[in-house]
């Protein structure tokens, strides 16, 4: 029972949110905040795998999000929407709910493949130099897409709303809410399993002492490759969901600012703490919304909060601990494995 309690609690929470959205308990604004929360949780926990657990400094996370967003959008629009360049839908709209998750996963897989661009240099370099490479990849992806006229170039790419409507036409339930919550659950599930296995503990070993890891039979190159691909693949899934929630993507929404937002969430939550990443993603989304009345001054206040955080609690909300380490009593109710 204890083994499954966390999963059950999570599933019940998700069901309540979906049921609430369906019954009209939350208005569209609250719904969109919840959607962004889910996407931010995926982004921060997947970046946390690289920055927190592996100790590399990746500051181009938005690049993978961008790849995922464009690839899954192109797939869904090609299949289910009328588009000037891509033409008429290839499949009847009834199939949209079945093919949507496949499109998202395709986006994730392509993003993971782009992740190799960062993973291979990481075999030889680390630290600041790898950080520069990640920024470079971020710019490469954005400039590449800006120069691709077939997906709209700098004007962006549209048509994803039609796909979402097509899904709603089949069954009228809050589809995007369901997919986002499923994506979040999938991310947390896969990350939790990865970092608690002996395989994934190699990631922490690389962070703490790479030479010792290599000499203690850990294949560090392979672990780096797998970790970068996993992290960027999950970012790609977040991007795919993001594109379909907004209904429109343009390259500049995945620029270095977005990557910085991901970084802020990781550092706010605490390096290497999965529960910290979840908590900070939720807090950060709420904070952005709470400060919305301040309009542009918001971008003075939020960095200021970050400065104060670094000054007074540099380890973030959770440090490198999990919720069950901070409150050991919680272990009676669930296990972190």
């Amino acid at each position, binding site marked *: 029972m204890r083994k499954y309690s966390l999963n059950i609690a999570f599933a019940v929470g998700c069901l309540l949110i979906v049921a609430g959205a369906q019954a009209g308990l939350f208005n569209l604004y609250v719904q969109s905040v919840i959607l962004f929360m889910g996407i931010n949780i995926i982004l921060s926990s997947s970046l946390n795998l690289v920055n927190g657990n592996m100790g590399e400094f990746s500051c181009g996370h938005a690049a993978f999000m961008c790849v995922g967003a464009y690839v899954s959008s192109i797939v869904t629009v090609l299949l289910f929407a009328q588009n000037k360049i891509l033409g008429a839908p290839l499949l009847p709209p009834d199939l949209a709910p079945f093919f949507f998750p496949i499109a998202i996963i395709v986006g994730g897989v392509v993003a993971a493949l782009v992740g190799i661009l960062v993973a291979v240099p990481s075999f030889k370099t680390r630290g600041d130099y790898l950080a520069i490479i990640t920024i470079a990849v971020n710019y490469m992806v954005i400039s590449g897409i800006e120069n691709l006229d077939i997906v709209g170039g700098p004007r962006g790419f549209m048509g994803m709303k039609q796909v979402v409507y097509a899904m709603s036409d089949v069954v009228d339930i809050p589809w995007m809410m369901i997919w986002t919550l499923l994506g979040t659950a999938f991310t947390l599930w*896969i990350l939790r399993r990865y970092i608690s296995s002996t395989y994934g503990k190699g990631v922490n070993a690389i962070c703490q002492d790479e030479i010792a*890891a290599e000499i203690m*039979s850990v294949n560090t190159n392979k672990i780096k490759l*797998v970790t970068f691909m996993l992290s960027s693949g999950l970012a790609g899934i977040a991007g795919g969901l993001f594109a379909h929630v907004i209904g429109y993507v343009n390259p500049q929404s995945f620029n270095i600012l977005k990557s910085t937002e991901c970084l802020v969430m990781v550092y706010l939550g605490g390096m290497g703490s999965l529960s910290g990443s979840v908590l900070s993603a939720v807090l950060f989304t709420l904070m952005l919304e709470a400060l919305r009345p301040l309009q542009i001054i918001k971008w003075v206040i939020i960095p200021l909060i970050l400065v104060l955080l670094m000054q007074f609690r540099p380890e973030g909300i959770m440090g490198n601990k999990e919720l069950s380490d901070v409150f050991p009593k919680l272990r009676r109710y669930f296990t972190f494995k």
Partner: protein
Amino acid sequence: MSLLKIDEMTQRFGGLQAVSKFEIELQGGELVGLIGPNGAGKTTIFNLVSGFYQPTEGGISFNGSNTAGLKPHQVTSMGIARTFQNIRLWHDMTVMDNIRIAQHYRKGYSVFDAFLRTKKYRDSEKRIENIAWEMLEAMDLKEFAHELPKNLPYGLQRRVEIARAMSIKPKLLLLDEPAAGLNSADVEGLIKLVRWIHDNFDITIWMIEHQMKVVMSLCQYIKCIDFGATIAEGTPEQIQNDPTVIKAYLGDDTI
């Protein structure tokens, strides 16, 4: 057949010749020492054997197969484990996890098994855990299994590092200055530990050590190097009385 055979191995870093024409042949079950003044190239030799560097010339063969071109983790999985001069444990992971991670080469499952928690994964994790407990039990570290190494005294950290290397079940154990930084009581403990390991496991031990007490009481055979070249070899008594060794350590008496 010899366990480890190093044949005329030379290593140059730019113009510096760190190791020149080094030769050694270790038979199974030996306990051999490698001594020499600071900067003589001892650790470089260990780094070459464990695969960190590829020798500029010459070759290393372990158990009859050449280790040229192998990565350190591949060399380790062939059965060469080592410790470091300055302790290199993963200080923010428990002693148990430190030993579990060292079992990476025999995990035998892919990352997808880890995601799906297949039977292969569960069996392998169970096996790894058993090996780790066995090793902790044997090395008298069971009570510290869930401690962080950084909270342990230095002597115990050494012991954990040796336990971690031993959990790989190596045929050859390289100890790089195991007594560095230990107090005299810990050194006594270390000598006992190394002797116990040598007696109880089917293992060959090759150690670098500065403390003559340790080398002289443990090693059956000693090789002394200076500036990358072998200057003397023999039993502890022969080495102790060898004038070239004394000269290398203490210098000449002419001014």
